[in-house]
């Protein structure tokens, strides 16, 4: 069965800075996200993972390539109708619930702001109802609507952030490190909430994180990104069990596991980008195992397998 591609990123380039100090944050990135799946983008700080999320949200302009949503190009100049549709259908959840909520607005205003911008004719009663429903959906109490963000804990604030996204009835949510600022026990609650929402509403997720162990729990497929380039991509279990690219393997070896014996005996792999000798030819995308792609040149492809 052919799955529907919801979002496709084609040869995406993003650069920051002017002519003199140009910085290439994202280099020729390609991936597809299918409807209903959770696609993970893993990388370290500075890898460009957040930039890709922001480029899809159109917060940063792309400097090359295409972003196709339901087959339509959404980067660059687009029509007004498409713009409104994209704003409604693609939502984002941010990392830091302390920083991403307006301190001076009541929860009710925070959650309904996007809705009011898109559905201008919405009546007061209906707006109140929709906000209440969104608050209940994320497991908070309706009376929270009249309070301010500082009255809530980190986990509750993150739920408010999720409610703000859900009220738009989005089809696609970009979650940028949604749990890394939270306590261990609260992380589990927020992850469960996100996967509940997916089951109930068939939401598609792009999940951006640096932590492969969380990724393993929540994603269907993963792309590993290093210095603006995707180096490996595949189904989650396949990629974790049979990691091929040395960078992915280094990332995996660095994850601390709650097992003292394993930790004491483990060997830390260190990735040195200078190990690649691409003087004879640029590396290419190669399918080294079924559905499992790695950025490598011909010699490496042979060595790594």
């Amino acid at each position, binding site marked *: 069965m052919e799955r529907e591609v919801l979002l496709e990123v084609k040869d995406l380039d993003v650069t920051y800075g002017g002519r003199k100090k140009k910085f290439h944050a994202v280099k020729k990135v390609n991936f597809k996200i299918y409807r209903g799946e959770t696609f993970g983008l893993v990388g370290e700080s500075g890898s460009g993972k957040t930039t890709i999320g922001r480029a899809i949200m159109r917060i940063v302009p792309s400097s090359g390539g295409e972003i196709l949503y339901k087959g339509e190009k959404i980067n660059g100049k687009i029509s007004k109708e498409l713009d409104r549709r994209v704003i409604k259908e693609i939502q984002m959840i941010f990392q830091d619930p302390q920083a991403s909520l307006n301190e001076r607005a009541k929860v009710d205003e925070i959650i309904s702001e996007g809705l009011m911008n898109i559905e201008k004719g919405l009546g007061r009663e209906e707006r109140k109802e929709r906000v209440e429903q969104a608050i209940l959906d994320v497991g908070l109490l309706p009376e929270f609507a009249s309070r301010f963000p500082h009255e809530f804990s980190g986990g509750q604030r993150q739920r408010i952030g999720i409610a703000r996204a859900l009220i738009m009835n989005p089809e696609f949510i970009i979650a940028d490190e949604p749990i890394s600022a939270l306590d261990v026990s609260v992380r589990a*609650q927020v992850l*469960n909430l996100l996967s509940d929402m997916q089951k109930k509403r068939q939401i598609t997720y792009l999940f951006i994180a640096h932590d492969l162990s969380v990724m393993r729990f929540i994603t269907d497929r993963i792309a590993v990104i290093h210095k603006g380039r995707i180096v490996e991509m595949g189904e989650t279990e396949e990629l974790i069990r049979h990691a091929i690219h040395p960078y992915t393997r280094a990332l995996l070896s660095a994850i601390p596991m709650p097992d003292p014996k394993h930790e004491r005996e483990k060997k830390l792999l260190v990735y040195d980008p200078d190990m690649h000798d691409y003087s004879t030819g640029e590396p290419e995308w190669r399918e080294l195992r079924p559905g499992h792609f790695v950025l490598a040149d011909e010699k490496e492809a042979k060595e790594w397998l």
Partner: protein
Amino acid sequence: MADKILTAKELEIQFKLRGKTLNAIRGVSLDLYKGEILAIVGESGSGKSVFTKSFMGLLDRNGRVAGGRILYYGRDGEEPLDLATVKREKEWYKIRGHEIAMIMQDPMTSLNPLKTIGKQIMEAVLLHQDVNRAEAKKRTLKYLEDVGIQDVARRFSQYPHEFSGGMRQRVVIAIAIACAPKILICDEPTTALDVTIQAQILDLLKELRHKYSLSIILITHDLGVVANIADRVAVMYAGDIIEIGTSEDIFYDPKHPYTQALLSSLPQIGVKGTDLFSIPGTPPNLFTEIRGDAFAPRNPKALKIDFLKTPPYFQVSPTHKAKTWLLDPRAPKVEPPAVVEKIRNGGLF
């Protein structure tokens, strides 16, 4: 077992907030041994930071040690010093850095952005070691090398913004080491760092503890980090240490329901497609008096007595004890949760 370097005895810490009293630390006793790495784990608000801050006289103004003692054995040939009785800032100056040093979570906020890192480390050397400037510089370069910074002569005259996050944390560690402390308190030292960098910093700490014969207290909420580095683990909940033991004790044989719940909620343990275990409810309000086991209201399998009487420590083995009525001989037998078996079998990744 090795000698003690620090002992907290029945320590109580209170904060005054809007006319009310918050009992942040409720009668905690703990021994820190020479040369060990002891991890203190707990959620935010459990009191882990407050507890260790009291060792350095760094409590906020509205906080005070309300009872108990903190005995420091680091001054050779002298009577142990009770840190709970130190009041004057002048006395603390002799303790902070020189006896007990601290590394914070965010290396950017602990460094002065306007001074070169060489100057900042040298400052610590000159303050805490009896040497002249030339010798101080020599030592500073050596410390930089010891914390794994390359090309030290050039790096010496650079500013914090020229360093990456991991390198900055190394500089902060170098400053701590330059004070020549006996105890190093690391408060979430790797939380702001990438996993690969985190692994390197943990390795560095392990190496330095031998080189400089340090006793390390590591405060963290990341149980993976704990498994990697700690000799012993203390689990803190609502201002009390509810279980303490070696890493093996805590990860392979956790006894307190809270420790078990913490382990169960780790995403590393999760199976895709099923819900991750999450602890219901919220931690108790520390403004009110806590009766019984503080975790009981969140523990679906709590016993009746958990709500009535605070459990004492039950000794599980010479190295392992926990405050839970489940260890009382009269308690019903409760099977450990599935997560324990999973960790023991090493079937995580």
